[in-house]
């Protein structure tokens, strides 16, 4: 970041952070990020017919 010419240095007291847990994603974010799963459709597949072997 551009700062320009140095002017002065100051020594202020440090502060102790009061750490707060980063909030969990809200409902909107969860819904937005949810992967849409396609509806499962049960399909019965009939067994394939055995080909009839004809003897010559």
């Amino acid at each position: 970041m551009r700062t320009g010419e140095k002017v002065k240095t100051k020594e202020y007291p440090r502060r102790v952070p009061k750490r707060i847990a980063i909030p969990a994603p809200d409902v909107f974010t969860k819904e937005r990020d949810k992967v849409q799963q396609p509806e499962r459709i049960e399909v019965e597949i009939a067994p394939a017919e055995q080909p009839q072997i004809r003897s010559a």
Partner: protein
Amino acid sequence: MLQPNNLKFDQLENELALKAVAWDFEQHAFVSPSKKEFVWNPDGLEAAVCHKCESAMPVDMKYLPELSPNMVPGDNCSCGIYSTFRWSIVEGYVSASPISAVMLTEAVGKTIIYMDGMRTYQLAIRAVIKPVFTHYVGRDNLIIGAAYQAADYFQVPVIDTKTAFVVMDLWNIFLNDDWHEWYRPESLDVKGMNEADILQYKEMFFARKEMA
């Protein structure tokens, strides 16, 4: 003029400047626009880390950080948390994320002051700035939404740009007796004030602060 929207002036102590933050969709947190791994905690106070400057610290001090001398930001290093007095500079950092906000921040710890900004050991977030400039047409709702998201995340008030510039300029001038030699105000209102006007505001402000 100096008590806008619940900004807690009685808690201010050091110089104010502008700082951009960007929402990170993966970490669900505000981060530095130029350094994604630098996450801002919702308490709004972060510290700079510089292994180069800290390695110059005497060994016995490394285990007692509360007693250690202020090594960061180093005088001959480029480390520290950067902030700026210029809207034209901070504006260049708001495109890192579609949800970006500009914060009014306060210097904490060792602070190296320059003509256009600061390098600090710690930076404390004090308010979020809601831009009102017309060249944001089309993105207005997103920018205002980002400002309120940042206000909610850091639990700080929202103030408009004009107010933020006046507050930053006057406060920085109040703290520096030699301001007229180097500080260039960002606000047109403050640029138009003479020294008598500024001293009048200073007396009014400190009278209110003592009453608070």
